[in-house]
């Protein structure tokens, strides 16, 4: 009996050493929005370096909590933390990739990229003030369209999500009444509408309800051929959501290392910038230098080699200038 136990223990011991030696692992947790691209990058990274990334897509809230408790090497959040919050928990932060949110509509006869909206109409629709599709404001934006006198069904996310945070931040910044009544958040107190669970829930409700409007991630709208709209950006141009307008938004957004890149990218001022976009962020612990360096190595590799993969999955890679700012930020924090 003793012999067997001894044998089992020694085998287990050898195995555990073997595993520990064979593969270095980076542990991360958080944003489910970023999960597809992080795992795609991780797959390629492991092939090249042998380092494994173990990423748990538990949601941004969970990601922040886990890195604050130091149970992971990095946390991932769709909402940036403020420098004050970062300081309090001893964290640093940088954006990793950019995603956009697009309004989708379901009005018979309206094709993708046809309807034009602006922040004022979006805000009034989501406040429940603009109730019918043939509202003068909507007609003025779409003079060529024959909009019906039908009630608008408003659809939003019911689960807490970074998509909602980016979308509500867009309304928050452009619409004083939204700021007063609702605000920005992963979940908010919606004045009107029904809540779908996840992008698929929103999409389904929008399809089902008819004469409806919702919002989803750009990638999701693209893959499912949803009727997304054009939006008027702060520069006064109507833009369609695509890689060019997202890149323009990223290029003209004021990401700054001195405030830890704390920026929602909504309403970027570029002439062709898509107004509802946002970065997804990586959080590192100041006091866990080794773990942070491992993570930074991974993201540095992804910044160099991962842009095509990101585009394939319909994420927008960071512009080169921003990548350099981030590298300088890493260096300044002694982890690069």
């Amino acid at each position, binding site marked *: 009996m003793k012999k067997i136990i001894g044998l089992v223990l020694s085998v287990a011991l050898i195995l555990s050493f073997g595993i520990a030696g064979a593969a270095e692992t980076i542990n991360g947790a958080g944003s489910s929005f970023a999960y597809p691209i992080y795992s795609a990058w991780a797959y390629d990274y492991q092939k090249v370096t042998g380092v494994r990334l173990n990423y748990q897509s*538990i*949601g*941004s*809230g*969970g990601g*922040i909590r886990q890195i604050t408790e130091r149970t992971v090497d990095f946390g991932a959040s769709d*909402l940036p933390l403020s420098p004050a919050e970062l300081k309090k928990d001893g964290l640093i932060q940088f954006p990793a990739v950019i995603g956009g949110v697009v309004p989708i509509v379901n009005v018979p006869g309206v094709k993708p990229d046809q309807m034009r909206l602006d922040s004022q109409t979006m805000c009034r629709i989501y406040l429940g003030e603009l109730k019918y599709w043939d509202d003068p404001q909507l007609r003025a934006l779409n003079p060529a369209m024959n909009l019906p006198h039908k*009630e608008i*069904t408003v659809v939003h996310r*019911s*689960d*807490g*999500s*970074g998509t909602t945070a980016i979308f509500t931040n867009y309304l928050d910044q452009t619409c004083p009444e939204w700021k007063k009544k*609702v*605000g*920005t*958040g*992963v*979940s*908010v*107190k*919606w004045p009107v*509408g*029904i*809540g*779908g*669970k996840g992008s698929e*829930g929103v999409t*389904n*409700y929008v399809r*089902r*309800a008819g004469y409806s409007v919702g919002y989803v991630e750009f990638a999701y709208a693209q893959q499912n051929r949803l009727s997304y709209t054009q939006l008027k950006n702060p520069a006064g141009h109507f833009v369609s959501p695509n890689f060019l307008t997202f890149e323009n938004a990223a290029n003209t957004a004021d990401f700054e290392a001195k405030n830890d890149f704390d920026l929602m990218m909504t309403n970027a001022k570029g002439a062709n910038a898509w107004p509802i976009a946002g970065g997804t962020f990586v959080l590192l612990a100041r006091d866990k230098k080794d773990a942070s360096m491992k993570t930074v190595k991974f993201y540095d590799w992804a910044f160099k080699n991962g842009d095509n993969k990101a585009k394939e999955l319909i994420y927008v890679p960071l512009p080169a200038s921003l990548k350099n700012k981030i590298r300088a930020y890493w260096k300044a924090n002694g982890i690069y």
Partner: protein
Amino acid sequence: MPVSSRKNPVDVTFSAITAVASFSVIVLVVGILYVLFSESSLAISKFGVWHFLSSTDWDPVRESFGALTNIYGTVVTTILSLIIAIPVAIGIAIFITEISPNFLKGPIGVAIELLAAIPSIIYGMWGLFALSPIMGNYVEPFLQKMTTGIPLVAFLFQGTPMGIDILTASVILSIMIIPFTASISRDSFNLTPPIVKESAYAVGATKWEVVKNVVLPYSKLGVFGGAVLSLGRALGETMAVAFVLGNDHKITSSLLDAAATITVTLANEFVEADKDIYLSSLFYLALVLFMMSFITLAVAKFFLIRAERRFSR
């Protein structure tokens, strides 16, 4: 406890193990309750009990939380699903015990048990993709047409029928709880002494009269207990409801409107709850649900025990 087993070491060990197993359940329940209390203490101290239970505000941005919209959604969907499920379930039970030929009893019984075995996420997907269009396109417009102009009823079916509302959620819930109510009702019906039923038939009673005057009076407490048990199940159902309820924090008089239940709110918002008071309020909400379920089950047990006593007499 049997006296003879007092000294036998095997028996002592055996009783110790069973005792530990049983007590671990109690420890677990108390432990869960303790965690719910301690995690929600922040919200309890900030909002108090009465304010939390009576406030309709659910605003994560302003950090102001109240449970009433969630409690309302939970109670309304549960009651409505019971109203739909209980007559159907009793019908099934009567058919199986009194009417059905023997060769049908097996298949129907198995089908009902299968209904209970379907995971709730599948009910949710089926509800969203199959039931909700049927409700939105046919059933709800029909109900609206039938009830327009009738006071006290018409307001229940106001609004645009979309199939994503309290009514659809209640229909799904009712399908999910029918197996529970039906099987408990069946067992209660079977408790009716055959001699009483045979006597009724002997004096010329029809099947309907026997069921109405003999079987149902004999088993009504058991049926009631079964209904309350399914109520407990309906209170806690999450995934199926989350798909078709519309998840909106509001109190509405129309059954064709979206609402939110406690469990749906927890499932939706727990993952991304980023602030302490938000998380704490969600735990508080869970505590409220725990209490509701506990009270419901206590009532059910009370009635079942009373029913059993009556039959054993």
